């Protein structure tokens, strides 16, 4: 074992390096101890290189500054010298020792180095290997988000297969007339995308089809797709969920049954598409927001767009009842000001308004906060607020893949490390509405993230993995499923390894290196190289002297 100490240019005054090297030299498995001024610069690296090439040591301990700053340099240097970097053990004697105490900390520094030595003795080499990865991506959902993802991936040279539950592509945006201020109407945009997909031989489309079973891990998902007639299974490297969202006027949110003069945003869009067909032009239209879900951007954005379309096409009076207009999207504030200039009246309430039907018209009663008194509005048409819900198959698919959903039931746990498009399982990505992201602008950046995520994972057709860094010992494993249930990344499966019985098998690519499985395993069958029980206990035991 070779030990390198760095006194950071002599600035670590409260550590007596010669004393340390004196104490540690006595240990019989220590080949040499070098004291250098700056291991992180060229001269330090030259010193390490010459030492390693001349002495035949099988472990390296470096006591220097924080791993966060220097570990990568030492690892890269060792790789160049054909020395397996997993046999390197670090001790931080600067930020965590010399800089945290006035007095002499030689004794603490010695003990920190002893801990690193204790661990180094037990380190085992871990090889790196290229694992073939399937370059194809499965896109679930043929709406705007799904098609755009497939087109972007194909542009970067990756084959995709779109699986759409309905019989045609297009999804939710097929029903929306357009976005105010956007010249090309969404319909044209959708049609051009559909034709582009048909022409693109990088994209295969399976309509009225559904995923019935998912097995395998990232790089090689074995997915069974069932259509009406037959069921077949394909292999994919990654899965992008673009299953959109569903809107509904829920009875418990709105006592009055929709229909007649209470319509949804989509019905309003239908009407606007052909205003001349209307029997009677509605004089006044009322919008109600923030009644059932105060935290969604969708009602505000769709209302602002439709309100301007109504003023333009029907010219009827428009009143919007809301609590907090969600204008925190790009361009939303401009739409709000444009609407106000076009004569739309915005009324703000604190308690939700009472709404009831009266002789063919709808009455809305609410205490307006700005005026400070009760406002009663009689309108011919009321556009009720819809609640955005997760698509139908969410529960089934998320349990099939054992991935989490958030508090509103949409895909993707509420964890900042996953934003914007990742899931806890590597190779499973979410885009747009299905993860609760309902406005078009943000959905576009989701798509880019998912595309980049899968591109960097699969583009080369292979991925570098650390072979069996976390390994299950088939002899000890009782297949008690504890690790499979505990693994937050779904990286462990029950497989028939070379032995005859089924044991837990950890996929090197899907494993994110957290070690939870090694901690929960009741049979101590899982060895996490670098942080195995013995290695951690070796560090713990050094304090006993």
């Amino acid at each position, binding site marked *: 074992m070779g030990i390198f100490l760095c006194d950071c240019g002599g600035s670590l005054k409260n550590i007596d390096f010669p004393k340390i090297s004196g104490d540690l030299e006595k240990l019989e498995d220590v080949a040499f101890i070098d004291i250098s001024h700056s291991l992180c610069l060229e001269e330090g690296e030259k010193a390490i290189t010459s030492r390693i090439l001349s002495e035949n040591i099988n472990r390296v301990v470096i006591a220097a500054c924080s791993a966060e700053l220097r570990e990568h340099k030492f690892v890269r240097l060792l790789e160049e010298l054909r020395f397996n970097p997993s046999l390197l053990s670090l001790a931080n004697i600067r930020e965590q020792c010399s800089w945290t105490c006035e007095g002499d900390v030689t004794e603490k520094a010695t003990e920190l180095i002893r801990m690193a030595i204790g661990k180094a003795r037990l380190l085992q080499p871990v090889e790196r290997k290229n694992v073939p990865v399937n370059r194809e991506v499965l896109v679930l959902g043929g709406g705007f988000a799904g098609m755009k993802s497939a087109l972007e991936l194909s*542009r970067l040279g990756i084959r995709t297969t779109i699986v759409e539950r309905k019989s045609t592509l297009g999804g939710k945006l097929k029903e929306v007339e357009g976005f105010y201020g956007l010249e090309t109407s969404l319909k044209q945009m959708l049609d051009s995308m559909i034709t582009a997909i048909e022409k693109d031989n990088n994209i295969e489309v399976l309509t009225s089809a559904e995923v019935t079973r998912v097995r395998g891990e990232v790089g090689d998902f074995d997915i069974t797709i069932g259509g009406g007639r037959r069921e077949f299974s394909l292999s994919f490297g990654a899965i992008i969920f673009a299953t959109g969202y569903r809107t509904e006027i829920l009875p418990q949110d709105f006592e009055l049954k929709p229909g007649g003069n209470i319509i949804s945003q989509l019905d309003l869009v239908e009407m606007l598409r052909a205003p001349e067909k209307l029997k009677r032009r509605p004089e006044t239209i009322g919008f109600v927001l923030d009644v059932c879900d105060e*935290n969604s951007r969708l009602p505000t954005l769709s209302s602002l767009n439709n309100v301007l379309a109504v003023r333009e096409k029907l010219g009827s009076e428009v009143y919007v009842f809301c609590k907090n207009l969600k204008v925190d999207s790009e361009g939303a504030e401009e739409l709000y000001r444009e609407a106000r200039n076009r004569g739309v009246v915005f009324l703000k309430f*604190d308690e939700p308004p009472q709404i009831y039907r009266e002789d063919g018209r709808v009455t809305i009663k609410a205490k307006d906060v700005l005026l400070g008194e009760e406002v009663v509005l009689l309108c011919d048409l009321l556009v009720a607020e819809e609640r955005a819900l997760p698509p139908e198959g969410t529960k089934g698919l998320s349990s099939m893949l054992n991935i989490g959903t958030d508090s509103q039931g949409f895909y993707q746990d509420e964890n900042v490390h996953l*934003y914007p498009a990742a899931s806890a399982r590597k190779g499973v990505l979410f885009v747009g509405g299905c993860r609760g992201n309902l406005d078009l*602008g943000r959905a576009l950046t989701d798509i880019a993230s998912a595309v980049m995520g899968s591109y*960097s994972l699969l583009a080369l057709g292979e991925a570098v993995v650390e072979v069996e860094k976390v390994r299950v010992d088939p002899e000890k494993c009782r297949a008690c499923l504890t690790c499979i249930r505990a693994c937050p990344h779904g990286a462990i499966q029950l497989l028939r390894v070379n032995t005859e019985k089924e044991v837990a098998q950890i996929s090197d690519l899907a494993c994110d290196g957290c070690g939870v499985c090694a901690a929960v395993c009741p049979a101590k069958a899982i060895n996490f190289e670098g942080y195995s029980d013995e290695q951690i206990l070796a560090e713990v035991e050094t304090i006993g002297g």
Partner: protein
Amino acid sequence: MNKSIAVIGGGASGITSALELANSGFRVYLIEREAAIGGQAASFCCKATDICTKCSVCLIPEKLNEVAVHPKISVLTDSTVAGLSGKAGDFEVEVLRKPQYIALERCVACGMCAGVCPTEPKASRSPSPDAVPYCYVIDETRCLRLRGEKCNLCQGTCPTNAIDFDREPERKELSVSAIIVATGFEVFNAREIGSLGYGRYPNILTGLDLERIFKDQGSLKLPSNGKEARRIAFIQCVGSRNEGHGYCSQVCCKYAMRFARLIKYQNPDTQVTIFYIDLQTAGKGFAEFYDECRGVIRFIRGVPVEILETSGELEVRFENISEGKVERETFDLVTLSVGITPRKDSWSLARVLGINLGDHGFFDTKEPFNSIETNVEGIFLAGTCQGPKDIPDSIAHGVAAAEGAMGVLEKCK
């Protein structure tokens, strides 16, 4: 056609674009104006109360370290873009770099130069604890040697002789095939609204001040006398949604509520009030947090216009819309939730690169719903330089810009 890309600005979105491109095999030049990368987001604090409030600030340090370490990214600190020529696929970017008196690759941040520096406060400034690259910087305005006097104490003691005073500003030519502009934003200068009294009274802070206080001290004390604040007010939409800035900055409601919850958590008997116009509570994972805040924080609809100091306390005059009359309330601390405004110098960068500015002063994009391509082919936008965004959206936007740039490169291959 060389596969290298220049990213201007090392903030949240800039480093994300750089990382995504580098991980996809491109060579990236990251041009950063300051001495360290990280931009504004790196100076923000974690606002968790033992439970994460999803502000994503903790993603930045990990990315910064990945960038500093990545073999395919070369970071040019203290650098600005002086000129541009060529077209998409073959740009020539002229970069001007301030003299590096302390060589980044030699400095081990041991602190001995600061030890011997005679000036007070030290001319050889230690970097902020999470600066990347973590190196000492010489402040020209205070260094005796750079002001012409004879002094090279630090040069003598530096163990890795990283200090060299006769280094000149460098001018570099970078040939790249695409450019991503990620120059970030400026916080609204609250002094511009005189009636709110920022700068006149010590106990009026802005959101940025709170970030720095919590980052350095971990808890909030009254700037005037260091005691605990009993009654705190947050005023929303300062510098957003008014005539000069016709947009919602999207971040102020959220950071105000996070701070309010954190303050309430640290000393529960403090009374916290938020004055707002429209409370923005949308976003992944924010609904639950909003319900939690509703029980603990007092929300008043109506934004104050004037704050005066009477007998050591701050008297806030505001129109309480719910009751429909003007009221006065006294607080011992007021925080102005300042919004996002375009950088003052984006005008000069726009002129150099030839890209247009939108009507709010942010860089303009080619068409609506395409938030990354500018009017010049091959130049893309990332992050808040294109419009107000919070940290998760800036990061996602950085990825989108990287994906856009890669698309151009694949096309001109």
